């Protein structure tokens, strides 16, 4: 795409004030900005300032806002899902590194990676219900389908902790391996998959007690999951290996496909038509586009410094939680299908 057409695209976006269903939001974590990309043009159309050190973002339960965690300014910045414009700032959310809404939409949880605590809020009004201090760099999270428990990886201590949402108390805290990061609850609600960034594998963990039930070699620096959307397959980024693998979880998890993505691949999202996987390449300041059917890289879009979270605008229609939409913990937890 030449510069003129990109400029025309940017102009039309700015004039209409709209980030439409065609848009993709990328958080440039090292330069305090977010990029809005055009999915069809595969180009960045505008880059806007946002807080400090934005890492993850999430759709609100009512589907009207995208919430960006600005970790170093202790706040959430809300973007209108239809226009991409900033609508409000939610203050006093300490170190919102990773974010998640429980499937029933009642609880909002943050993993304060640098401040070593997990905060559980009443999602309605972001009222803090409980703050649990826990050593070990709380990193990523997943929920059970009944919205009773949140599971948080502790990257430095190599453990996963389970917290009761209603009472904000620790249920268990178990070792799982070196530097656990991404975590996802499978739809059967009986298996947690945990990516070990300090190793080359993922482990299957029993959500009841944290016991390890299995292990699968994937690639060095196994880091983050994203559901393919069929309730069975999950993409996994392997940061050190520079690899994205597709894992079939029907029985024992197994790798069924992989694609090389250089530059420390991290967060992922899928286009609404289910054909493309977009992957942030932290080190290359780019987003790679993978054709899911062939598992080949078909495009690459330049963005800002250290791109981390990615969010695909899927629809301009108002949606509600529980209406069959994916319920995510900031690009990591699974589709509920």
């Amino acid at each position, binding site marked *: 795409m030449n510069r003129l057409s990109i400029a025309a695209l940017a102009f039309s976006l700015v004039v209409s004030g709209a980030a439409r269903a065609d848009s993709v939001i990328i958080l440039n974590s090292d330069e*305090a900005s977010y990029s809005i990309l055009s999915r069809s043009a595969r180009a960045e159309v505008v880059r806007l300032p946002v807080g400090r050190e934005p890492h993850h973002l999430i759709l609100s339960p009512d589907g009207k806002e995208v919430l960006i965690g600005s970790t170093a300014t202790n706040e959430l910045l809300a973007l209108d899902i239809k226009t991409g414009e900033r609508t409000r700032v939610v203050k006093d959310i300490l170190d919102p590194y990773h974010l998640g809404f429980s499937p029933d939409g009642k609880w909002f949880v943050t993993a304060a990676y*640098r*401040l070593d605590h997990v905060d559980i809020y009443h999602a309605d009004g972001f009222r803090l219900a409980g703050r649990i201090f826990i050593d070990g760099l709380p990193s990523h999270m997943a929920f059970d389908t009944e919205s009773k428990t949140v599971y948080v990886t502790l*990257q430095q201590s190599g453990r996963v902790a389970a917290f009761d949402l209603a009472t904000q108390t620790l249920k268990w805290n178990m070792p799982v391996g070196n*530097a656990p990061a991404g975590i996802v609850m499978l739809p059967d609600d009986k298996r947690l998959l945990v990516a070990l*960034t300090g190793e080359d594998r993922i482990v299957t963990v029993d959500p009841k007690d944290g016991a390890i039930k299995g292990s699968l070699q994937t690639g060095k620096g196994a880091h983050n999951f994203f559901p393919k959307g069929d309730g069975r397959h999950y993409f996994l980024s392997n940061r050190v290996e520079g690899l994205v693998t597709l894992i079939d979880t029907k029985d024992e998890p197994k790798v069924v496909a992989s694609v090389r993505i*250089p530059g420390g691949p991290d967060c992922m999202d899928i286009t609404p038509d289910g054909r493309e996987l977009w992957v942030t390449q932290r*080190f*290359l300041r780019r987003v790679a586009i993978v054709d899911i059917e062939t598992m080949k890289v078909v495009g690459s879009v*330049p963005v800002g410094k250290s791109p981390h979270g990615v969010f695909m605008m899927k629809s301009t229609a108002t949606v509600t939680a529980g209406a069959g939409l994916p319920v995510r913990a900031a690009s990591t937890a699974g589709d509920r299908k």
Partner: protein
Amino acid sequence: MRDLIDLWVGVQAWLFETLVSPVLFHFGLMAWYEPGYSAVEFVMLGVVQIAVIAIGMRFFERRWPLEKPGPDDGLIMVDRVYTVLNKLGIIPLAIFILTYPLVQEVELAVRSWGYMPPRLERLLPWIGDNALVSFLVYFVLYDFAAYWLHRGQHAFGWWWALHSLHHSQRRMTVWTDDRNHVLDDLLITLALVLFSQFVGVQPGEYVVILMVGRLIESWSHANVDMSFGWLGERLLVGPRFHRLHHALSTPTERHIQDHNFAPVFPIWDILFGTAIYDEKIRPTGVDDAAVDADNGRGWIVQQATVFGRFLRALMPRFRRRASVP
């Protein structure tokens, strides 16, 4: 421009994924994964800075030298060692390892209290909407802090004991800027990093500010007979302005080094009454035989000697002779 960025990050990613990442992974140091990638960029920027100094700035020194070649030329060699150690990140890495836990603790304590520094964008939202304006504003603020720290280096006896190493060079050149005691570097770095966090400088911006600022400071030490012109000399610190700060004190100009402190923007000296603009050419160095003896010593001996000087200045019972400019 994008091609240049792609080339830069391509080299950075290749170096990191080939040399650094496997080591971090092997030794279970994945908590240093992101900082490790930034460190590679720091070293690459250092190579660029050394190239700019050695090729670009040295061209001007050779073409328009202020001080002609002389018997003291050999004194410059140790300054090259300082520059390489600093620019390639060896000294900064040691400082980073020492200061990082402290800086982290301070930041985490402040944030866990729920206190958020009054970032500029909150007061002036338009700053955040323009990357260049944001960079310039933070650069000016950073330089303001650096100006006052520099005044502190001259005001306190113990700090001057360290900083006097920087001033002891009789042959001032583009290599002189990095001639500092590691403890002095550590204190300055710690103060500036904390200040930058307090006002909200972005990590990415901080690196650029550091690089641009240090290049300007290298140039301000150049042995050249050049001026930015009347207006330019009041906008940016140049060799003529900064050479006065390094001037040897004389009975008639005993406190000459207490002027022209600004690292990058002379506005601070103008505002706070410490600016002197004149055309007079003065010899550089210090009027203190013990400090002047730094000349001719190697890096290790200089570091050890100056540390002893610092201890004696700090603790009177060890003091044989304290020297304040």
